[in-house]
């Protein structure tokens, strides 16, 4: 990941503009070579072992509405940036393939993969048994959820518990938090309290807007997403609490390509071992506690 600071210094030295422009162009051409050098040493061996994807360009389906993980770069909207994006590029560098991106709704991530319109999904998607019926998951990160509420937490929500009874929760279609909130319905009933309601949206921005507009009381999602939202609207939003969710974040790969799954797992393991994954977490301001050794979640 030395590429990044290097890029910053290049941009900083303004007087040499023209020479630098040439340097950037040259660097552009040389980038794959230097990347090769930057990738963990065992990657060369992996490329030999898994030559099928070397020199290829694969499609990564993402739901680019999660700043920190994947979103377009506000400074240059033609690029996607974030932890997942960098991680994907690193895996690509290690195995010798390049990635292009296909932006879809969250609920369409796995269908896009299954229809062959994408080769891989690295998009902050939680690996669950249910989802593992549609794709194999290589897990790479622990999950901490944040509970986003309006400033002052008027409903006194303090977790995925009875404090949600009678509240309106905004969620993205297909999110794992949806069944968690639904599971509260009978519990609230049993406690003689009103049921929680769900509002399903298409992306983070819409969920956050639902709270800002007073339509929803809470939005429970990955803690870093929640933190970013609070950062953007410090006067209007706050994080009520962070909760642990019994899932891992996973990279989804097609079920019918075990060899590809093996190769990605091997590359990810190298990136984990080399410390690059931890460095990435830090670079994107994510909690280092998220770090997790790569694992597998598959069902038949």
């Amino acid at each position, binding site marked *: 990941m030395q590429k990044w600071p290097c890029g910053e210094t290049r941009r900083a030295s303004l007087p040499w503009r023209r020479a630098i422009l040439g340097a950037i162009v040259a660097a552009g051409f040389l980038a794959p070579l230097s990347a090769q050098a930057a990738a963990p040493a065992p990657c060369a061996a992996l490329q030999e072992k898994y030559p099928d994807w070397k020199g290829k360009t694969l499609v990564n*389906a993402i739901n*680019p*509405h*999660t*700043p920190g993980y994947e*979103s*377009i*770069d*506000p400074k240059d*909207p*033609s690029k996607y940036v974030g932890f997942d994006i960098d991680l994907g590029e690193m895996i690509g560098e290690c195995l010798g393939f390049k990635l292009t991106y*296909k*932006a*879809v*709704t969250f609920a*369409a991530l796995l*269908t*896009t993969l*299954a*229809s*062959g*319109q994408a080769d891989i999904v690295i998009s902050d998607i939680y690996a669950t048994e249910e989802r593992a019926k549609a794709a194999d998951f290589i897990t790479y990160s622990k999950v901490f959820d944040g509970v986003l509420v309006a400033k002052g937490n008027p409903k006194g929500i303090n977790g995925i518990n009875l404090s949600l009874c009678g509240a309106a929760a905004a969620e993205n279609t297909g999110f794992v938090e949806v069944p968690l909130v639904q599971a509260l319905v009978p519990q609230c009933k049993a406690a003689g309290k009103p049921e929680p309601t769900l509002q399903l949206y*298409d*992306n*983070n*921005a*819409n969920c*956050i*807007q639902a709270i800002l507009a007073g339509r929803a009381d809470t939005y429970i999602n990955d803690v870093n997403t929640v933190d970013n*939202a609070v950062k*953007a*609207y410090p006067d209007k939003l706050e994080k009520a609490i962070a909760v642990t969710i019994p899932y891992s974040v996973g990279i989804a790969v097609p079920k019918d390509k075990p060899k590809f799954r093996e190769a990605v797992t091997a590359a990810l393991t190298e990136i984990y071992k080399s410390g690059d994954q931890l460095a990435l977490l830090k670079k994107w301001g994510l909690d280092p506690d998220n770090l997790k050794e790569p694992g597998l979640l598959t069902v038949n």
Partner: protein
Amino acid sequence: MSLFLHYLSLPYLLAGIELTLEVTALGLAGGLILGLILAWMQLSRFWWLSAIARGYTVIFRGTPLILQMVFAYDALPHIGIKLPAVLAAGLALACNEAPFIAEMLRAGVLGVERGQIAAGQALGMTPAVLMRRVIAPQAIRTMIPAFGNESVSALKNSSLASVIAVQELTLRSTQLASSTFDFFSIFFASGLIYLVLTGAISGIQLALEWLLDLDRTSRERKLADYLPWRRVDLLTKPELAEKNAPPIDVVAGLEPDSPAPPARTLTPEERARRTATIARNNVAVEVKDLSKTYGQQNVLDGLNLTVRVGEVIALLGPSGSGKSTLLRCINHLENWDAGTVRVGGRRLGFDDDGKPLSPRAIANERANVGVGMVFQQFNLFSHLTAKENVAGPLRWVHGMTRIDADRRARELLDRVGLSHRADALPRHLSGGQQQRVAIARALAPNPSVLLLDEPTSALDPELVNEVLEVIRRLAVDDGLTMIISTHQIRFADEVADRVAFLSGGRILEEGPAHEVLSNPRNPVTARFLSVMEADKTPEPVR
């Protein structure tokens, strides 16, 4: 505000316009092609084609576009069709637009007056020529507003392509909103971009309406008339056009555009000589045992009629007696159940073995045999000027050059006293003038027989004479073979050689005009004539 302007000019968003337009264009172009096929299938005379088209319409009009998009994108790959996202979106949009466009096309085609189609058929136009020259030009004009609507809706619907990863304007806006949290500035900017695009479509629509406006040439109609705050009363337009035209239709027989001078009435001696000549002539039309039923009702009941070359026959009889049906059978605009019709010795509508011909072959035969027809409701092609109404069919059916056809048209319009209105549209002509143009049109190909179906019944009383005068001259001066169904007893008496009185699909009585009209032998004929006699005023418009 500055953020709004920033996003409005952001190349990232502007680049989304291109994809939005691509998907829209694919959807509209594909939808038009598919829609044409669907409309053609639905209008086809084969029921199973129309059933397939109906089924397609039910499915694709009845399911949400968003599902169709996802289907084209995610389901088609499972059967081996992996389209790029833009093409998949374009395909889904096209499949979705097609039934709507097909219905527009169908409405446009069905909206063209049936009478004009009958007139085109009577002139010998094949179905293809009829579609291209008569139906399509009028249908397209009426369809432009609906098509503008459809284009705007397609443009907006293209935003649904965002669910299948097409980086069009809406997807770019939501992504940008997610990463910057500038929700409203971004959506106002993209909303304004959509407005500009849909505004451009409206502009194109209005420009097309202006270009194809038939009144644009006859009267200065400015593009500004189409602006929403301008009010142009469409009903006053014909009057305006009339005001600009020379004065007309003052008193029948005296008006400047009447075919001067009036034909004289034949003396009894001349009449006798004429009858003797006709008796020696060949048979022009021979109708034998003609029968036709509509459901339970016998419209024609074993009818026999022979008409000789140069003869003028008036068909009299109450409404529903079968006069019109008989005329429509003679040039095979209608089918019948039994009997034969021969024109000039040929059996129209059947080949040598007696098998029915296709609509195309019948059209060609009509053109060759030459049976002209004049309708009660004139049935001029309303998108063509008087001159084009006459000259057009000559070019399209008889293959005349434009110069020859125009010369012939001018000659005939002159004969019916309308050369000064050659460039007027039918709607700017009075009823009498329209019927005279219709007569000129029917005469242009030199028909061997002219059929006139109550040519003056739809006319205001003061306009009847100018048309009768034209017909009278055709009979007396030109010796044209004519079969006229009419309620004008006095006219029949003066002009017809023979009258045939129809009732219940049969001829009750026929004979020399003067004899039958002054001395009817059949009591039904006598009663009918005395009623007509009592009501001297011309037949009111039905």
